[in-house]
Structure formats: C-alpha cells, structure tokens
C-alpha cells in the first residue's frame, strides 16, 4: 500500500482514529493471546529462572545460581547441548538436501509425477507418534525388516536405536523419513518450476553444462527458499523432542539425551521449574545466536531476484 499520492476521498472516511480503533479491534484476539500465552509466560519464565521453585513450596529467589549450575556443574547440560548440535548439524543439511534432491527428481518430469509426489509426501503426514512406533519395529536388530533387507545385500545391520553410537543416527533417519518428502519438498519443487526457462536456454546457448546451469541459475533462484527453510529447520531441530521421547527416552544410557529432553525432565519429571526455566532461556539464547549468524551469512549467498 503506497502512501505517496492518496486521493482526497480516502481521507474522508479513513481517519487515523478509525484506522487505529478498528485495527486494534481486529487484531485483539492475537494481542490478547500474545500477552497471555506468549509475552506473559516469557516474562514469567525469565523471572522464575532466577528462583528455586518446585511447585509444592513457594518460589525463593536465588539469583543466577540456576545459570551457574547449568554452565558449570550440570554434566548433562553440555553433553545434551552437544548431542543436540550433533543432531542439528546432520539432520538439517541432510533434510534440506534430501528435499531438494527429491524435488529435482520430480522436476525431471518422469511419467506419473503426481503419483511419485504423493508417495514421497505421504510419510510427512504420519503423526510423529505413529511413525516413531512403526520405526522402532522396522529398526529392530534381529527381527526388523531394515536389517533383514540389509543382510540380503550382505550388510550386517547395527542395533540402531539400541546402540549408543546409532541412537542419534536412527532418530535422524526417522526424522528424515517424515521430513524429506513433505511440504519442504513441495515448496522446492514449486521454486524449481518457477525458474524461467529462458534462463536455462540462454545458458545453453552460451554452452553451459548441467553443473554450471545448476550452480549459476538453479541455486541462486531458489536460495531465498533454501534460506527460509534453513532458518526454520535449525529452530525446529534445536528443540528435538517427540521422536527421541517416544523411541529411546534419551537412551540407551544417555546416548540420545537431547537438550529438549533435559528441559522436559527437569520441568515435568522433577518439577524443578526454576531450573527448567533457566535452561529454556539458555536454549533461547543459543537459538538467537544461531539465527543471527545465519542472517549475517545470508548476504553472501542468498540472491533475491528483484521482487519474486
């Protein structure tokens, strides 16, 4: 909406007062919800993070002790953070790459593209709980079909979710199955299809090979979408919880004890609310740092083709 040359008639009924009153009236559901369910809780959790609060007794102020404890004495803090980083660093790029590759595959215009698109998309519709339970079975060391299929090609399948070294990769595998062909793939496909053919044709005339075309046309044109999904992907992956809780509960041992599980256990198993709030704010800080870094780096590789 431009504000430059407004016809006079608009001024007659679009008074600023009317705009303000009606505007706030219409957004009031969100404003109320924001104050009650977002901002209020954020302030509360920040305040509680400086207290010792276990529900049964009233909260007592302890200053930064929760934070100090987390950073220095809670051995699970750093390890769970590290495990979460490990998960993020592998799951997010693989997920993005996978979605992109699937989209590129579908973009080859094979016969029955719609059917394949459906096949790839359906897993993303599976409720996480159901997917987790099914995969626990699939990845069973002895009687699961995955290891059986691997053995047919001569590979000895690992104990997957039951092995310390394989717990997180197994969870990543499940996350990829539900995530790769989902909405992200569809968005990439739309993005790929939105690249004007003329660009490729012009490149071909100049003698560009497929790699060159990919690097100089395809990638830049879809880079905004990639960036958007990268940011959201990292935000989501840092909070990983559902799959881990259902399949391994953080085990075996603490092999898949993610930061989200750590917070959850302190809040809803030990009811150590003060400490849990402090942990959640630490996660928030980590998340903000990640996002800021990405935004800084985005100038170097994200290409905005005018108004897309």
């Amino acid at each position, binding site marked *: 909406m431009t504000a430059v040359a407004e016809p006079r008639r608009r001024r007659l*009924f679009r008074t600023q007062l009317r705009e303000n009153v009606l505007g706030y009236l219409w957004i009031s559901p*969100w404003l109320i*919800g924001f104050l009650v369910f977002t901002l209020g809780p954020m302030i509360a959790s920040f305040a509680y993070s400086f207290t010792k609060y276990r529900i049964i007794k009233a909260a007592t102020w302890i200053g930064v002790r929760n934070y100090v404890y987390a950073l220095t004495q809670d051995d699970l803090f750093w390890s769970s953070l590290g495990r979460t980083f490990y998960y993020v660093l592998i799951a997010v790029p693989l997920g993005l790459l996978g979605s992109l590759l699937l989209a590129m595959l579908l973009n080859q215009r094979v*016969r029955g593209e719609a059917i394949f698109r459906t*096949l790839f998309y359906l897993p993303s519709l599976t409720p996480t709980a159901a997917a987790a339970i099914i995969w626990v079975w699939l990845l069973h060391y002895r009687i699961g079909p995955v290891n059986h299929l691997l053995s047919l090609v001569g590979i000895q399948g690992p104990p997957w979710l039951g092995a310390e070294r394989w717990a997180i990769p197994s969870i990543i595998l499940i996350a990829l199955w539900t995530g790769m062909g989902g*909405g992200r793939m569809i968005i990439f496909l739309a993005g790929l299809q939105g690249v004007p053919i003329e660009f490729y044709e012009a490149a071909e005339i100049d003698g560009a090979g497929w790699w060159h075309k990919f690097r100089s046309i395809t990638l830049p044109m879809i880079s905004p979408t990639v960036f958007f999904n990268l940011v959201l992907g990292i*935000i989501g992956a840092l909070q990983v919880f559902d799959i881990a809780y259902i399949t391994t509960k953080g085990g075996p041992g603490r092999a898949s004890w993610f930061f989200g599980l750590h917070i959850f256990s302190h809040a809803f198993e030990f009811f150590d609310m003060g400490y849990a*709030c402090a942990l959640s704010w630490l996660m928030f800080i980590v998340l903000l740092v990640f996002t800021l870094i990405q935004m800084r780096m985005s100038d170097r590789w994200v290409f905005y083709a005018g108004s897309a």
Partner: protein
Amino acid sequence: MTEATSARASAHVVTGARTRRGRSYWLGIVWRIFVYLFTLVLGLMFMLPFFWSLSSAFKPVEDLYVFPPLWFPRHWQPQNFVQVFQLTPFAQWTWNSVKIAAFSVVGEVISAAAVAYGFSRYRFKGRNVLFVVLLSTMMIPIYVTIIPRFMLFRELKWLDTHLPLIVPSFLGGGAFNIFLLRQFFMTIPQDFDEAAYVDGASSWTIFWRIILPLSKPAISTVAIFSFLGSWQAFLAPLIYLNTKEKFTLPLGLTWFRQPLMDSSEPRDHLLMAASVMVTLPVIALFFAAQRYFISGIVMSGLKG
C-alpha cells in the same frame, strides 16, 4: 523436440530414408529410464514403513517375532483392530482428538482471519512493529513458554482438561496462519472495501461478505494445516493431560506401547493396528483434499 530432431524427423517422413539417431539421443533415453527407476526405488523405500505396518497390523502376534521377518501375514487377523478398541479407550481417544482438532481448526481459522484482516486492511499506529513481533514469535522455543503456561493452567485448574489445547487457538490462531492469510488478503484490491463502504457496509460486513468468500483457498489451507498440527500434536497433550481417558491419539498410542504391569503378553501387532488407525484419517484427508494441500503449501512457501 529440438529443431534439429524435428527437422530430422520430417526429413525421415519426406524421403523415407533411414536416419541414424545420434548418440546423445540414446544417452537421453538411458538417462530417462535410469531416473524413472531411481524414482521408483525411492518411492518404494518411502512406502516401506507403511507397507510393513499395514501388513503387521493384520498379523497374529507370533508372526511379528519370526525370523526372517514375514512380509505378509501367515494368517490374516483383522480382529487385531477390534482388540485395540477392547484393550484401550481407543474410541475415546479418537473422539478426543477429533474434538480438539475441530475446535482448534475453527478457532485458528476465525481468529487468524480476523487478525490478518486487521493487519492487512487497517493502517493503525504500530502496525509494522506489531507485525514484526508477530513474525518473531515463530522463533521462540516452545520450552520457554510452555513451562509457565503449565503453571498458568494449573492455577486456572485447567490441567487434565482439553482447554489448554483449545483455548489458545481462539486467541491469535497461530503466527504462521496469520502471516499466510495476511499475505493473501493483501492481494484483494482495496477498491472492493471502499465500494462496500460507500454502500454503507461496516467493517465486519466487509470482512464477512467480501474478504472471506474471496479467500476460500487460503482459508482451506489454514484449516488443513491447523488440523494436521492438532491431530499429531504430542508435547502439549503430554504435558497437560494425566488421565488415560482424556488422552489424544498420539498420546494414547505411546501409552499403549508401555507394557502393562499385570500382563506380559506382547502386543506389538495391536500396536501396529493402532498406529495404522491413527495415520489413516490424515491420509484419507490428503486424498480427499489433495488440491488444497499442494496449492496451499506452494502458496505458503512462495509467499514466505
């Protein structure tokens, strides 16, 4: 076809002479076959878990513990599905999930539309700031807000009810939904509003009779995503609900997985049947509304 090949093809027709196909032509065919096969294999791999769970849902329990694993049941046992209902409050869980999802969808659609209408149609003071605030709420980790929310609902005595899962939907309908609808509303020309206003329409009338009817695709998309989100939600129900009978389906499924104290009978075949039943509604919804899924995702992605 490129000009070269079509010229050759027409030459073929005219002269009847046999022309030699270039090597790149055969390479292209091989490539296409390879791509097709590769996609097919990938598709089958993606479907493997569905196939396995569906087949296991019909197996008698011993068939699941056989080595090597059986791909098809030896005897078909559809009673598994019935047994799920007998051993668990599955019907109640389904009703809970449906009820919560229905309320959530209605709440999110109405409030997101209203808020998006406000953000897109009215230039109120602080609008841009508030919109940025709205968008940045998508970056807040859920743990930061859900712990105090738990304490709030505890004060309100709403714990172990479905209210914490429903009420927030009516108050702001989800930041992404608002964003999506606002972008869509902005493509509707303001002239419609003004024409209606001149005819004496109120703000509400414009919203209800002009904007909403023109936004059916966007609204359907929001409704679908809202339903999906509610149906498969796990953390919030896990935190707020204690009584088994109040569980939603994902929660009930997870509960069902824990072995009962008194019975040591393996129930994995029933677990598979239950998982299938939990997944089926969304898949059915997809096939029924496929158009809206795809177009909605594309719209949300490109506008984002």
